[in-house]
């Protein structure tokens, strides 16, 4: 049994890749899968903070690639889920620290260790780190904000997934593409200030796997180092749970894409 490789990518920075990687990996682990989540952003390690394990990083991804540490020594076990592990990015400034062969070796090692899923948190851009994060993928979660530059960049990324991955080069079944719309604000969509789910789907020619509403809970979660999916009371957490279920093949209707109905007092006083 080989591990399914999922890349979380976007092209543009700051759209929610690391937030998504953390919640996706945690959600898959909550569904009983054995999951590793790898930070590919060499030089700008951040997944460890979002996962709340920053003080437990001893060895990192580059150490494993260079044979300076074993996978077992480098995987950081999650505090809450025993079948969830984090592999931190290196803080080296050497851009060539990762190689295609090295990454392949690590992914094969994880497969041999019985992992069901490996989530690859891509850096922004389309340089080497982003290329390596997507190269071996079976699935891609393309994170997009309802905003012009993000939509354009994600179209670019969808093109790269279709041409610059191992599956594309070998002429195998293409990488399964999942579009995830984050920072969605239904109230602004309703008054025509923000691109709608339908707009983004039509422009990119692909339907969404989930819509994550803009939510204060995302910042709270990152402040605390707890992936927002763990906060089952938050709308963003629930939307991530739905997304993970859909990636696992379950059918769930989209939620939180309409403006919530207001109560009497809200209607009178606004807000």
């Amino acid at each position, binding site marked *: 049994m080989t591990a399914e490789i999922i890349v979380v990518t976007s092209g543009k920075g700051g759209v929610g890749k690391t937030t998504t990687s953390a919640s996706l990996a945690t959600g898959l682990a909550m569904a009983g899968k054995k999951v590793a989540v790898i930070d590919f952003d060499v030089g700008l390690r951040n997944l460890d903070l979002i996962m709340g394990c920053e003080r437990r990083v001893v060895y990192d991804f580059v150490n494993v690639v260079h044979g300076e540490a074993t996978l077992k020594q480098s995987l950081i076990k999650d505090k809450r889920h025993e079948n969830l592990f984090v592999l931190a990015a290196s803080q080296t400034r050497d851009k060539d620290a990762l190689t295609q062969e090295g990454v392949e070796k690590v992914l094969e090692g994880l497969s041999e260790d019985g992992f069901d899923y490996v989530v690859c948190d891509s850096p922004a851009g389309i340089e080497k780190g982003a290329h390596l994060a997507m190269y071996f993928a079976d699935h891609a979660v393309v994170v997009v904000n309802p905003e012009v530059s993000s939509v354009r960049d994600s179209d670019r990324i969808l*093109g790269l997934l279709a041409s610059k991955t191992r599956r594309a080069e070998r002429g195998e079944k293409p990488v399964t593409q999942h579009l995830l719309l984050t920072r969605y604000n239904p109230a602004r969509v309703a008054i025509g*200030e923000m691109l709608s789910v339908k707009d983004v789907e039509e422009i990119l020619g692909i339907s969404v796997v989930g819509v994550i509403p803009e939510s204060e809970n995302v910042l709270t979660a990152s402040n605390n180092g707890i992936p927002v999916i763990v906060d089952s009371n938050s709308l963003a957490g629930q939307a991530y749970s739905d997304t993970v279920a859909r990636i696992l093949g379950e059918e769930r209707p989209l939620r939180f894409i309409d403006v919530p109905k207001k109560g009497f007092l809200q209607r009178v006083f606004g807000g």
Partner: protein
Amino acid sequence: MGILDFLKRKGEPTANVARERLRIIVAQERSNRGAPDYLPMMRSELLEVIKKYVHVDIEAISIKLEQDSGHEILELSVALPDGKAPAKSDTAAG
């Protein structure tokens, strides 16, 4: 819409503008996708050659690369100006 909403400044409904701009740019970038990196440079060099003979603008030249069952077609089209005035008169009298 509540009473207090009148006090809030509302933004312009600009999502339509964003959608139309994206439709155009995404379609344009998709048509160039997979094209070799040398195309823009070839386009400007071709322009230099054409300019020797006819006055044309870079906008008048379009290069398209199309994939058609197993072979690629490089299509070059040049919109010539109405007057077809020669750029340099090598055969000028005198």
